[in-house]
């Protein structure tokens, strides 16, 4: 099935759309999940994450913009986003359990606070479109700086300095807001 037909089925919420999505991209989605959720405690979350991705694509396929790139790339991004989110939730949960066990006080480092999902979504609004995309690639999709540099045909240090400038912008905005 070609992408156009698949998107049409998903937009129409057709009963066969999920089966069609699995047939066309199920393997790709599961491979992305496997590549990111590999720790022992994460493995059993793979199926849940797979269903979460299918559900997200089924519900929000309208967010995909054909003019901006291939559907396969978009599906990889959505899957990475969901898998990283699962990873982050599990890591938070495990950390909390560990801390509870040791009766230690909970302190969240600034960096982690910034990239926690809810904050992130509102904070990156201060960035321009290109930097927003860079932040999403780095902090939401967890792409390596090497990969980003290669894809954007820039040096690693250029990417690092853009990230640093972006973080500075966000820090200033936080200070202005009194946070």
């Amino acid at each position: 099935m070609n992408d156009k037909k698949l998107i049409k089925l998903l937009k129409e919420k057709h009963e066969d759309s999920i089966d069609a999505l699995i047939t066309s991209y199920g393997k790709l989605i599961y491979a992305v999940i496997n590549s990111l959720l590999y720790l022992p405690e994460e493995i059993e979350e793979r199926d849940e994450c797979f269903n979460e991705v299918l559900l997200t694509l089924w519900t929000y396929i309208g967010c995909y913009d054909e003019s901006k790139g291939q559907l396969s790339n978009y599906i990889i991004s959505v899957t990475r986003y969901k898998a990283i989110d699962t990873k982050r939730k599990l890591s938070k949960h495990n950390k909390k359990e560990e801390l509870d066990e040791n009766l230690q006080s909970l302190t969240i480092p600034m960096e982690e606070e910034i990239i926690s999902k809810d904050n992130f979504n509102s904070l990156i609004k201060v960035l321009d479109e290109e930097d927003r995309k860079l932040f999403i690639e780095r902090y939401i999709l967890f792409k390596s700086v090497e990969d980003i540099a290669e894809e954007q045909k820039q040096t690693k240090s250029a990417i690092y300095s853009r990230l640093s400038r972006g973080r500075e912008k966000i820090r200033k905005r936080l200070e202005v807001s009194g946070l």
Partner: protein
Amino acid sequence: MSEKDILKELNGIEYSSEYKEKLNSFNEVSIEELKLKSANLKSKLSQSYFEKQKEMVKELLEKGEEIDYYVKGANIEMLRTMIAFGRGLTFKSNDIPFNYSIFVTNKRIFIGDSNYYDEANGFTVYNLDEIKEVERDKVGYKVDREVKKRRRQVMKFGVSPAVNFFILFRYSFGFIVSLVILTNTLFMWYNNYIRRGYVVGDDGKRYFDGFYDLMQASDAMTTGDNIIFSLIAAIIIWGIVRLVKYLTRSKLRISMKLKENDYLDFIVVNEDGEEIAKKLQSLSNNNK
């Protein structure tokens, strides 16, 4: 920035061919396994949408109004259409209600149209005194008969002779095969039991001397005859099983007349359907 906004931002992100190739090494599940993994997704979706519908109704309630009970139903017209046209024919599921979610409060009745996954299209609201008639019966065999009627309509209004022929062939294939087998059988029975049962009398005329001896007949049977006999036995058993299924399969159907000209016809999904049907009927009786 909402989830939707983040998902919009994910457009235009590229991945290198090396990364995509690397993903192949993580590819260890078959499509069939993946379909199994997502098997409970439909019921999850359905449940979450139903809960959303419930919340929507709660927001529409007036002061002192409470939801007494609800009933989920499959649109009978849609089921018939699906069976008659086959799943091969695609149609916009958004435009046709697959299911009904009906919420009955102490004042009103909310009838929600929803698609295959119970995603709500909207609600129609009636006062309880607008329920004019509620009928319930068991359906199964009856529906199948109606479906056959629909198939004939499909053939009648088919778009072209080729499509008509295809539909006729599709639905008549079993009949044609049965007819061929039956003709063969009759011919064989005539040959083995009747033709050989004739004897020639003293006067030179042929007389029927009863059926040809069964043992002799079976000796005379070829492998081909045996295969045909086995096929007939299999078809008879299959027919009996189908007939039993037809007659024993039944579901609760509720037909409602609301206001003067609004009708609702659905198959009840709830396990406590009988009880709910009685409650709905009592509401309509009160309005008579």
